[in-house]
């Protein structure tokens, strides 16, 4: 799908800056810039991103490789800091938080799903989920989390004994075990075939629907983008377009 077609289908509005008073906004990025210095070379990855991520919705950040979407996700999740600009989670400025505060923020609010799962190879599925649930006071029961992703029958399996899709589902269970308010998914289907990928996406959409978790998915796959309530298109470090996806489809309707 071309960007022109997407533009036509999105409601594009300018994002407001500063602390969000709008309770529907979970995360607000205000003129976020990020550059990396490697030797004498400075690479500007994000060049002033303004973006609102609405609470309880699935937001898909779409962009080609090298567009800055992973960096954007890392900063929303508090594992990286902007060079300039601010990021608010509710009314908390996470860009001004200390390392310890950021860790605490990730601990209680954020669930991460990585492209390559990042499961601990020496732990079973159940234990991988427990690694996360041990961190919070009122977690989901680890087995319940596995049941959510239909992996409860593989609770005693080690990652090496699972397929890629199964590992990704365990990694989703690990993320949701903490009952996060914000689930950040970095190319969750990037390493999977279409069928397995769709099963994983279905899990994420169900999770959003049933637990009301705010989900951010970053992808280069335009088909995947069609699942989002909102779509933000990122290119060369800036948001090219952002808006409501009026032609949202179900997982069964997408293909790649």
């Amino acid at each position: 799908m071309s960007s022109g077609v997407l533009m036509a289908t999105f409601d594009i509005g300018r994002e407001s800056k500063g602390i969000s008073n709008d309770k529907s906004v979970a995360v607000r990025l205000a003129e976020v810039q990020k550059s990396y210095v490697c030797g004498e070379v400075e690479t500007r990855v994000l060049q002033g991103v303004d973006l609102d991520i609405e609470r309880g919705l699935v937001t898909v950040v779409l962009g080609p490789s090298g567009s800055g979407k992973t960096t954007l996700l890392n900063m929303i999740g508090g594992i990286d800091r902007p060079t300039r600009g601010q990021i608010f989670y509710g009314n908390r400025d996470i860009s001004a938080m200390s390392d310890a505060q950021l860790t605490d923020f990730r601990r209680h609010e954020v669930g991460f799903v990585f492209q390559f799962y990042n499961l601990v190879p020496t732990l079973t599925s159940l234990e991988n989920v427990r690694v996360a649930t041990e961190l919070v006071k009122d977690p989901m029961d680890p087995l319940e989390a596995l049941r959510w992703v239909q992996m409860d029958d593989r609770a005693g399996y080690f990652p090496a004994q699972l397929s890629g899709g199964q590992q990704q589902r365990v990694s989703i269970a690990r993320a949701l075990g903490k009952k996060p308010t914000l689930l950040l998914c970095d190319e969750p289907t990037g390493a999977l075939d279409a069928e397995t990928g769709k099963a994983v996406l279905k899990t994420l959409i169900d999770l959003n629907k049933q637990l009301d978790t705010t989900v951010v998915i970053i992808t280069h796959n335009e088909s995947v983008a069609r699942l989002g309530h909102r779509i933000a298109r990122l290119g060369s470090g800036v948001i090219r377009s952002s808006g409501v996806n009026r032609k949202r489809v179900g997982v069964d309707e997408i293909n790649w």
Partner: protein
Amino acid sequence: MLAAVVAISAIGVGCLVGMMGTYLNLDRARDAFFARCQMTDFWVSLKQAPEAEVTRLGKLSGVSRLRERIVFPAMVSSAGEPKRGIDPDRPVGALVISMPDVRRAVLDDITLRQGSYFTDRRDNEAIISERFAAAHGLVPGSVIGLILGGQNRTVHVVGTAISAETTYLTPPGAVAPDPEIYGAVWIKRTYAEDVFDLHGACNSVVGSVTPGFKADPRPVMDTVADRLASYGVLSRTPIGEQLSAMTLDTEIGGLRTMGGVLPSIFLLVAALVLNVLMVRMSDQQRTVIGTLKAIGVPGRHIFAHFIAYGLVVGLLGGVLGCALGYVLAGGMTGMYRSFFNFPNLINHAHPALFTIGLLVSTGSAVLGTLYGVRRVRLLTAGEAMRPKPPESAGRIVLERWGAFWKRLGFGWQLVLRNVFRNRVRSAIGLVAAGSGSAIVFAALGMRSSLHHMVDFQFNNVVKSNYELVLHDPVEDSAIDEARRISGISDAEGRLELEGEASFGPARKQAVISGLAPGSVLTVPHDAGEQRLRIPSFGVLMPKRMSEQLGLRVGDRFVFRPSRGEQREHSVFVAGIADSAFGTQTMYTSLDFLSELVGQHNAVTSIQLRGTPDRQQRRAFFRRVRESSEVATFSDIGRQKEQLNEELIQKLGSVTYVMIGFAAVIFLGTILNGALMSLKDRRRELATFRVLGYQPREIGSMLFREIILVNMIGAALGLPLGVALLNGLSDQIANDLFRMMVHVPRINWVMSLMLAFVFTVLAYRVVYALIKRMNVLDALGVKE
């Protein structure tokens, strides 16, 4: 990680080069000095024998050369100006030895250090030992007073010298040289004949043996002594029992053994760590190797690259180790220089040793590398280009005990999984921690044993302040006289009988000391520090002697006195006494010994307890200095002081060096293990950080792993430490003293505590790295 391997390797080589270098320095200097002085193979002391008779014995089979001479202990009535802080009235003794009037090479010769040999200007010229001269400010031209032949005589110092047989010259009853109160004085033979009234006679025969008897000169010595028996043989001393030779042998033997044991421990740990490192490195380079293979780089070139890497690591450790060892050998040789006055005891560079050090270091590094990279070499290019498959996961053995496993808690389950899954790394951790704690334990044990040895001897056994050994036996009424001396509060007499103890083929020079009933100034104790009753029948035998002769309580052995009626006596072992010093002295009751030798109401030495009054003490000292009856004087307090200064402080510094080395083993291996673990689990730990684990929580997991492995290893190392300490004690024991192994409970605790401290120190570095870990790099989620 590499720095830690290089450090461990360097310390291993450093120990090897340092200890073996000191050994070679000492051995070389000893051999050269002994050869230069023509150190003899045996000594026979006599009452009096005609010179001509000794000359005839020179033709006996096995005898290479014989020399007859006159040797007497003497009190020094005046000896220059003592150094500041030394009581000028403190009795000073000397061993007076005759030398030819005209310079010629003789057995047990001297090496002049200052001044000249005897001249023909005066009869009463003397050459004095170098350190004695230095301690008393004496130089050629000085005059000293000696009690010779019962008279106070003046001798003129013409030179200072050193000699092989007086290398380790200790005051009577002491175990360390003390030149402030004891030295050697060489006088002209003719003068000695005059003052001791021994014209044409001698009281000491020294001899060297033909090469066939060098290993054991006893048979030749015995033949010579037996032929002189009618002249009253007092003692026979083969070179192996001569104080200077024996002390040097013990030291050199100990160095040789330790020079083998300690470096072996370090090099073993270094080789193991290096091995794991190389396996890890080859794993990391797997895809690079695969790509190189795929583009056609021959396997042997890739292999050579890794071997070169191991070679560089080994060489680096070896070169640093050689440098460290050279410095260490310099320090240790310097320490020995203060014990033994050799002319050429200097630190040499030993190229052969450096070569061995480099070979050992590079050899262990290359072997580790070979083992590590051989796996990669076997892979095809295609296989190697793919990342290493994930570790095979499975349950560990502890999980079989379900109830136990569940009770552990999640944190400990994670820790135990990692410990059990990385078996090789954990095993190396155990070996390293065990080695480290064994070294710490042995070092601490050595220190406490030395302290205990001094305390045991001076708090339990020897309770007198002074001991006087007399030229001739005196009636025991002299004890009452001694008690009346101003400055003396108590006195006890002892009858001492030198001789040879034998049991089966084993024999030993020994002394039986007869103590007064209810003696309070000499109190034998057993190993459990319990006071032993002086037996009225039989003897209390020192532990070391009982072990050497193979005797137990209740056994009988043969004792042949070297003076008086020299008939053999069958003597009963009534008990075993523990003793750190004077390990050749047996105790019995005065009455029993008097009966045995048929010499009643006589004593040969007197123990005295002094009063604290300074003036009275000085008066007593003056009286001793001028006495013609006193052969030797021992100041017990001074002996204790000297031991603390010389032995314990110097050996104490060795303790710190050993603990320092152990720290390197701990820190080196823990850091290596932890850094490898951090690298291997980088992605996993970064995931934990992303999940919301604080660095201290991740650190706590790693800390639990490190502390678990290292504390178990340290605990397992303690029995090894006991063995090491016992080995050390055996190694440094001789007839002069024996290190009584004494390990207070605190040592066990201290060893584990030090292991804990080293572990925590290493962990601090690991924690700093966790805090600095770049999560984005580790996860590979950087744009």
